[in-house]
């Protein structure tokens, strides 16, 4: 609400207003704007040629490929999970529903390091299934499947959490009308429910994708840091940074930062579309 429309008793003096805006912007500057600016300044500190070289060297392109592969598996799986969970929670009454919703949120309460650790305990060499996997020559930990599983765990609530409140608020009237007209369950889902939730669904997928591509702690535990084979983009950034290759580290980091900015832009666009 613009301040100009308010009467004097209902707003603050201009000096106070300027002070509050200034204080808020300084706080956000220290924690948001300056870090954001720094990533791009440091990325180009060694020049544009070095920037391109850092992004196009074989280890970087391998990391980009692995990151895209991980997201390409984890995001659709969590999309299916989110749709099924939201459908079950919003369309039916059953005992233990609140417990189910809490369980869906559970990964948010687990530290990323613990999220990775549990897969090591399950599939690692000394894990519960370790001997069996070794006997059958299946590698999950320190290999791509472990990275995908840890990413799925960390990002599993994101789509469900977007969809559940939307579908609960919308109610079932239109679906029930379609049902009485003789539409099948799949047809109702595709033609009635899906169009109603498309913006929330899109935002859930976009956010899930950003988190899947950027996950660090959980992936760090299960990856083993085998360069060119099990290093995703965030892990590649870590390796470069620890080797004091700062310009290269920030060049790769700038790709992930761009992804974050695109995610936020899409979010604003979706909010604007649904307003």
């Amino acid at each position, binding site marked *: *609400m613009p301040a100009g429309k308010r009467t004097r008793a209902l707003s603050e003096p201009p000096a106070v207003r300027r002070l509050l805006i200034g204080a808020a912007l300084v706080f956000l500057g220290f924690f948001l704007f300056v870090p954001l600016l720094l990533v791009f300044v440091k990325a180009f500190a060694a020049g544009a040629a070095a920037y391109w070289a850092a992004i196009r060297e074989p280890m970087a392109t391998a990391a980009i490929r692995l990151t895209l592969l991980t997201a390409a598996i984890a995001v659709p799986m969590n999309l299916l999970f989110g749709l099924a969970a939201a459908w079950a929670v919003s369309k039916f009454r059953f005992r233990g529903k609140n417990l189910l919703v809490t369980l869906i949120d559970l990964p948010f309460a687990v530290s990323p390091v613990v999220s990775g650790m549990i897969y090591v305990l399950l599939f690692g060499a000394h894990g519960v299934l370790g001997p069996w996997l070794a006997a059958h020559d299946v590698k999950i930990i320190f290999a791509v499947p472990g990275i995908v599983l840890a990413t799925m765990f960390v990002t599993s609530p994101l789509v469900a959490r977007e969809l559940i409140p939307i579908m609960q608020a919308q109610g079932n009237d239109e679906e029930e009308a379609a049902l009485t007209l003789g539409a099948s369950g799949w047809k109702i889902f595709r033609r009635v429910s899906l169009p109603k939730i498309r913006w929330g669904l899109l935002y859930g997928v976009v956010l899930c994708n950003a988190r899947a591509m950027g996950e660090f702690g959980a992936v760090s535990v299960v990856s083993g840091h085998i360069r060119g084979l099990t290093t995703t983009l965030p892990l590649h950034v870590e390796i470069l940074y620890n080797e004091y290759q700062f310009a290269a580290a920030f060049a790769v*980091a700038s790709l992930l930062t761009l992804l974050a900015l695109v995610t936020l832009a899409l979010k604003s666009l979706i909010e604007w579309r649904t307003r």
Partner: protein
Amino acid sequence: MRAAGSRFRGGSVMPGFGLSLGFTLLYLALIILIPLSTVVLKTFDLTWGRFWETVSAPRALAAYRLSLGASCLGAAINAGFGLLVAWVLERYEFAGRRVVDALVDLPFALPTAVAGIALASIYAGNGWIGRWLEPLGIKVAYQPLGVVVALTFIGLPFVVRTVQPVLRDLDPEVEAAAASLGASRWQTFRKVMLPELMPAVATGFVLAFARALGEYGSVIFIAGNMPLRSEITPLLIMIKLEQYDYAGATAIALVFLLVSFALLFVINLLAWRRSRRMAAAEMGT
């Protein structure tokens, strides 16, 4: 026939109860619950004495203290400044307000490793901000204070995003009534508006605290990671894993998980109480 059958199974005429709930439960079991249960399972490898020794070792106690303290401090900073940012974004018009509003969510979208190296570079002794703080005797990076900075960043959106909708829905007539009764603007804020906003601030605080507690990526680059001094609990778990001390790592993780689940319970309780308050308020009007 099908509709009648599903009426008993889900209390609804809608189809797909078995399929959707079945897939949800299967996915939850395979991806989340069975893997998580290994934490409890693996802890049984330890005797009670060894378990207690591991989780109460001086290095572990120092890590809990730092994790809890820095998370609490970061969440408190966010409670204060989050309220300020939410107020400024909702009540004032200024150039770039929409962009600033969108950027508040950056900590949700930016990979934590990127945030970590950026914050470490900025707050190091020769960094953009660190070089101005060091002459004042304030060292941030590679100190416990660096942990607070990283955890403040990670929890930044929570209070802003919980307070904004409440601020938007505040009835302007209540403010007008307070003003017409002779209350100053500050009195109206403190006595009338702040009590309405506090539940949202509290929810945001707990969410930010819970998120900060488990955070790893953004902290390890800026913390310095000295045992007993600037080593957070998730890093201690990581170090034990790298030394193949799985039982030790699990014991500390179990303690940590119990604290996190207690927080999750508090969050759900706060949300439930807020929704009840809101429902009661709607019935009153």
